[in-house]
């Protein structure tokens, strides 16, 4: 198994402390743990949105410190727990990431199909800021999927959804990951989801890792 991330002796204030951890390529890694335990901080470290106070993170053999942050984030894309919408249309919100990373903009038909698959009944011209929290979460998910990165970092991608939709969405994400040989590191509040979909399960409690 090829190593995707190798983490050693990481310390972030008193929030997170990881002595050693390996995450493998083309696998689904689920992270569970109580709120405030450091899960999101860990994901932000992997996205290079935050740097550790101490320790080292190696991404595919190269130290994260030496990798250009912007390029890294274009390959290792994160979906935040709280969906943030730019005050524009649904369409603009879907393609904003493609603009940032100079990726081709998919045709509107393709975007509409993706939204349908995620059960979002919105038109492209609708104001994204007026969508419900659940719709926003799925638009944000679609936005990340469109970027087609090597690694998906997902912070509770279905927290605002009912149980049935949640299952459907996670199933969709995992299927996409496996079909396209991507890697998925996903925080979930649901032990059931973690056990059903994870190739590897990590528990974070009080800033410590338990594999």
């Amino acid at each position: 198994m090829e190593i995707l991330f190798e983490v050693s002796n990481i310390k972030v204030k008193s929030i997170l402390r990881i002595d050693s951890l390996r995450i493998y390529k083309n696998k689904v890694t689920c992270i569970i743990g109580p709120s405030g335990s450091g899960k999101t901080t860990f994901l932000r470290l992997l996205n290079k949105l935050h740097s550790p106070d101490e320790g080292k993170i190696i991404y595919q053999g190269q130290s994260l410190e030496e990798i250009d942050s912007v390029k890294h984030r274009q390959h290792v894309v994160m979906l935040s727990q709280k969906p943030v919408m730019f005050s524009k249309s649904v369409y603009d919100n879907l393609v904003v990431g493609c603009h940032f990373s100079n990726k081709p903009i998919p045709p509107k038909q393709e975007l509409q199909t993706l939204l349908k698959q995620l059960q979002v009944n919105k038109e492209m011209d609708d104001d994204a800021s007026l969508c419900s929290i659940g719709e926003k979460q799925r638009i944000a998910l679609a936005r990340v999927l469109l970027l087609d990165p090597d690694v998906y970092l997902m912070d509770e991608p279905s927290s605002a959804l009912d149980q049935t939709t949640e299952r459907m969405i996670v199933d969709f994400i995992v299927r996409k990951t496996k079909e396209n040989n991507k890697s998925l590191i996903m925080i979930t509040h649901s032990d059931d989801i973690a056990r059903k979909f994870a190739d590897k399960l990590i528990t974070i409690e009080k800033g410590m890792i338990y594999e």
Partner: protein
Amino acid sequence: MNSIIQLSIVQLFIAYGLVVLVFILLKIRKIPEQKLLILATLRMSLQLVMVGYILIYLFDHQNPWLTLLVIFIMQIFSMYTIFKKFNNKLSKALKRVIVIVFPLATLSVLFYFLFLVIQISPWYDAQYFIPLAGMIVGNSMTGVILGVSIMNDAMLENRELVEEALILGADIKQASKAIIDKSFSQAIVPTLNNMLGMGIIFLPGMMTGQILSGVSPLVAISYQIGIMLGILATVSLSVILILYFGSKTYFNEQSQLKT
């Protein structure tokens, strides 16, 4: 042209009667700015009397070093005023940007205006140099305070949006573009509104002063048009450069938002 009516001390005191009216209004309505009103009136009067005598001295003793010294003092005071306005809310890095960019932007426009538009001679002629520098530096200062204040607030309030852009692969220019554009447009709107109303809603101060002191309205107009274009340019240039370089100070070298 009619000769100029010189204002006597008595006439000036009659003008101060207007301040007394404002004071009474504040007192009746129990508005607490009464002390500030007195302080502002006193300071304005003293400062203008002082600057009047200084200008007389500078005009009578034309000297390049003296002119440059006055410009230097203007720059220092305007930057001090900008920093004071923010009550230590500005980072050291942002202050550094202002200290470098503000003089560069204002002096470029000032020199362009003095040497290419008016073509003054000698180059340090205080009669043109100092009043025009005052207008250019003063207006830029107001624009910068407005622009930086909007950017600073927006960077705090819209932190999530900036971070989301970073998450989606934006570089720091892309992540802060919307905030820079919004801050810039709001900072130049007062100058543009001023230009829209000029000559119809009000007569600008410089032009009024020139006309009152006996200058032909046509000469006053040509100066006013020129200086308004200069003000627009200096406000735009100083604000956009400070916003552009200043926005980078909110990020660290790893393109992460500073905490």
